[in-house]
């Protein structure tokens, strides 16, 4: 006989305000099979859990239903408590009385009625629950970090320093990401490359890190502890094992006018190139699209120049399959394309630039050697207008969210400009100044007070270019309540931060959720900020949301510690929610084998004692099965069932709802 205990949580007032918990408890006490029903203010608290544990022992419960918040929140908590009291954790179910009831209904009578239903359904389900035991799977203690920006670098170094192997996959020819392109960093104004490049070198030389630059993730199979990731090593046309990075090849390359991605189009590069002098690995690749040899079949200047014979025009993409136990996604961000804003020139004018272009102008290693010179004619601008929230906080044309870092970098830009052009004017149009962060507000104040940046609260309605090359910026000073016109030489737009193009495809491969803007979703907005809904896949940096460097680094270290935590045990305990085949009734039609998304169902031959095949059936590989249950619904004779969501359990739930 089932002996079910029902425990109802008021969640402070969160449930109790709308649901009459006492009435639900009274109703639960009368449900068949229920031998114990109580309510309590905070069931998840220590005394609350004690109540459950005590009742399990004293009332000899065979099943427990906790009516509280969403099981996505506290199911692990309560299952752990049940296990501590000696009850198999899978004999506990939760009714979602908060997210699915009290928070979404106002009518107390209706909400209470619904709550009773929700409890009744779970009471019936739990009577059919069976004891399940965790499945142990070995863990491959190697991590993959996707993305070699500062977040990826930090995660890789932390994991490697923790003693585990790391494979760092970077799409472009060098690691370093956006941080390598920055001039100085806020709020300390220390040189970005000076702090970053030693880290990059450390990555390259670390015995635990395998760097796969110029490579991309192609496909993913497997699951936490045992991912099989296929990485495409893109054709470099240069044998890096022979190359010394001497530079003879790019010096001889005749194609010299390709806009440099690293310099945000302000500088030029050759067809065989390394992105920047401090690149790691410091080896060139050939840009297939622009190389004359690869497009037209003649030239070969770089091959002639190379004394090591490292150039190989016949190089091909290579697919490498790698087994890893955990993955950190650190794919970073791009800038929103401001050409959607026709009123800001729609990307037509060379002197309306984005933040990265300004960084390159300000950088000592940039195309102007650190002098602020405007792109159109190379003159030093006397008035620079900075426009914040370009695409951010604009749900009509751009993005609804705040890009978080623009207030700070715009203040930094104004400051850098004023440090270089003392008599120049820096005018900043802003909506609000958001300078939350250590030393950030002080930094903005310094830009205003010490360096004389002119902050104007208001939006720019239009920019147009006068015949003399001046950019006429028409805006409004909303604090003074008057329109305002500035004759600028250079306009810098603080474009919104958006996820990298192609980040959705990567998310789909790893089974990670993403929001409508394409940022990866964390498992819980507050309490699980680096995990994802895909076990064993963690997030670091701006792929999850706009972040500045310290935030990205913190999250990267957090992700690394999660990976190390996962790797601290040789085996992984998995939820035993897996499918099982009833071999008596299976007729081996193979529909489930065709349908299984994981290839987890195999043919199996049942043999008699002499070794003759008596019957062929389908059999589930426990290590591969992820418990989706697709096979169960496909099986015509219902010869497969899914532990935790068995036909009996679902049947009793549906029947109870009558």
């Amino acid at each position, binding site marked *: 006989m089932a002996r079910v205990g029902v425990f109802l949580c008021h969640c402070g007032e969160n449930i109790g305000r709308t649901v009459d918990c006492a009435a639900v408890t009274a109703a639960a006490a009368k449900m068949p099979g229920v031998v114990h029903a109580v309510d309590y203010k905070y069931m998840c608290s220590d005394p609350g859990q004690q109540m459950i544990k005590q009742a399990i022992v004293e009332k000899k419960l065979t099943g427990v239903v906790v009516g509280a918040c969403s099981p996505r929140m506290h199911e692990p908590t309560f299952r752990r408590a049940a296990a501590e009291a000696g009850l198999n954790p899978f004999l506990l179910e939760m009714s979602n009385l908060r997210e699915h*009831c009290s928070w*979404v209904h106002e009518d107390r009578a209706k909400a209470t009625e619904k709550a009773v239903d929700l409890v009744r359904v779970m009471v019936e389900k739990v009577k059919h629950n069976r004891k399940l035991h965790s499945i142990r799977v070995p863990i491959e203690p190697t991590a993959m970090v996707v993305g070699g920006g500062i977040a990826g670098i930090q995660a890789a170094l932390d994991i490697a320093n923790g003693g585990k192997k790391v494979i760092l996959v970077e799409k472009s020819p060098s690691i370093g990401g956006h941080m390598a392109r920055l001039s100085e960093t806020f709020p300390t104004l220390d040189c970005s490359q000076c702090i970053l490049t030693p880290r990059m070198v450390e990555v390259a030389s670390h015995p635990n890190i395998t760097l796969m630059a110029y490579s991309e993730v192609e496909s993913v199979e497997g699951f936490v502890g045992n991912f099989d990731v296929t990485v495409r090593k893109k054709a470099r046309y240069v044998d890096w094992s022979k190359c010394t990075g001497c530079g003879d090849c790019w010096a001889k390359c005749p194609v010299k006018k390709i806009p440099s991605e690293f310099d945000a189009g302000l500088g030029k590069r050759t067809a065989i190139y390394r992105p920047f002098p401090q690149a790691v690995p410091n080896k060139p690749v050939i840009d297939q699209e622009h190389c004359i040899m690869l497009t037209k079949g003649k030239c070969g200047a770089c091959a002639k120049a190379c004394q090591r014979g490292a150039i190989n025009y016949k190089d091909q993409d290579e697919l490498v399959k790698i087994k890893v136990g955990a993955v950190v996604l650190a794919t970073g961000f791009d800038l929103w394309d401001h050409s959607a804003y026709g009123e800001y020139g729609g990307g037509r004018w060379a002197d309306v630039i984005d933040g990265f272009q300004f960084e390159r102008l300000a950088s000592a290693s940039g195309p102007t050697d650190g002098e602020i010179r405007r792109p159109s004619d190379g003159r030093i601008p006397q008035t620079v207008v900075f426009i914040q929230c370009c695409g951010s906080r604009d749900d009509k044309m751009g993005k609804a969210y705040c890009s978080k870092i623009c207030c700070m970098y715009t203040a930094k830009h104004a400051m850098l400009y004023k440090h270089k052009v003392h008599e120049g004017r820096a005018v900043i149009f802003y909506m609000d100044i958001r300078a939350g962060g250590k030393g950030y507000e002080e930094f903005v104040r310094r830009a205003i007070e010490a360096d004389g940046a002119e902050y104007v609260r208001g939006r720019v309605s239009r920019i147009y270019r006068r015949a003399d090359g001046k950019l006429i910026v028409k805006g409004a000073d909303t604090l003074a309540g008057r329109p305002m016109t500035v004759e600028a030489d250079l306009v810098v737009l603080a474009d919104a931060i958006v996820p990298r193009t192609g980040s959705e495809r990567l998310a789909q491969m790893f089974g990670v959720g993403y929001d409508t803007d394409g940022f990866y979703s964390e498992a819980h907005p507050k309490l699980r900020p680096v995990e994802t809904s895909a076990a064993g896949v963690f997030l670091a940096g701006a792929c999850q949301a706009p972040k500045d460097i310290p935030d990205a680094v913190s999250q990267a270290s957090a992700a690394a510690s999660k990976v190390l935590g996962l790797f601290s045990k040789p085996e992984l305990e998995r939820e035993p929610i897996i499918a099982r085949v009833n071999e008596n009734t299976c007729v081996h039609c193979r529909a489930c084998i065709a349908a299984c998304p994981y290839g987890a169902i195999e043919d199996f031959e049942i043999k008699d004692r002499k070794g003759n095949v008596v019957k062929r059936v389908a059999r589930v590989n426990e290590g591969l099965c992820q418990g989706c249950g*697709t096979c169960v619904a496909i099986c015509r004779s219902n010869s497969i069932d899914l532990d935790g969501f068995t036909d009996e359990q679902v049947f009793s739930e549906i029947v109870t709802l009558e």
Partner: protein
Amino acid sequence: MLKQQFARRFLSICAAGLRTRRADWDRTGLMAETETKKVEATPAVFEPKIVAFVCNWCTYAGADLAGTSRLQYAPNVRIVKLPCTGRIDPLFILKAFEGGADAVLVSGCHPGDCHYTSGNYHARRRWAIFRRLLEFTGIDMRRVFFSWVSAAEGAKFADLINRITADVRAAGPFERTNPARRRLWK
């Protein structure tokens, strides 16, 4: 006796009017919400019973988000949680109708978002066929709803439940015309 009944009825009508007005300026401003209020005080109006089969990773989480966002919706839905839409057997839908559900909702992850990579694609194909069969055998398609609701779409979930409740309420009880209903043909 009669007087008492009359008085009770009168009071309930007054209360209905008050509540309706309150809901009208309710911040959610949802029409369906307004209707719910009107309905609850008038016993003759029909409250549909909706059974929803949802996946754990998208729609269940989306419903959670509707909760954390405090979006109000009609209390007529009862959710049965499965790991994935791929687990949802047509038998579930039949059984729900057999048990007298006025409508059934099946909802999971958007294509490409399935936690199990392709369970929802399997489900989509299964439903495409099964709904034709249900329709052909006399189940009114205004009673069967399919939806993709992601974990980020709390508002979509709330709207969906309100819309279904309003639609099914307009369609009336399914009991009389439901071919799958238990004890229909005695």
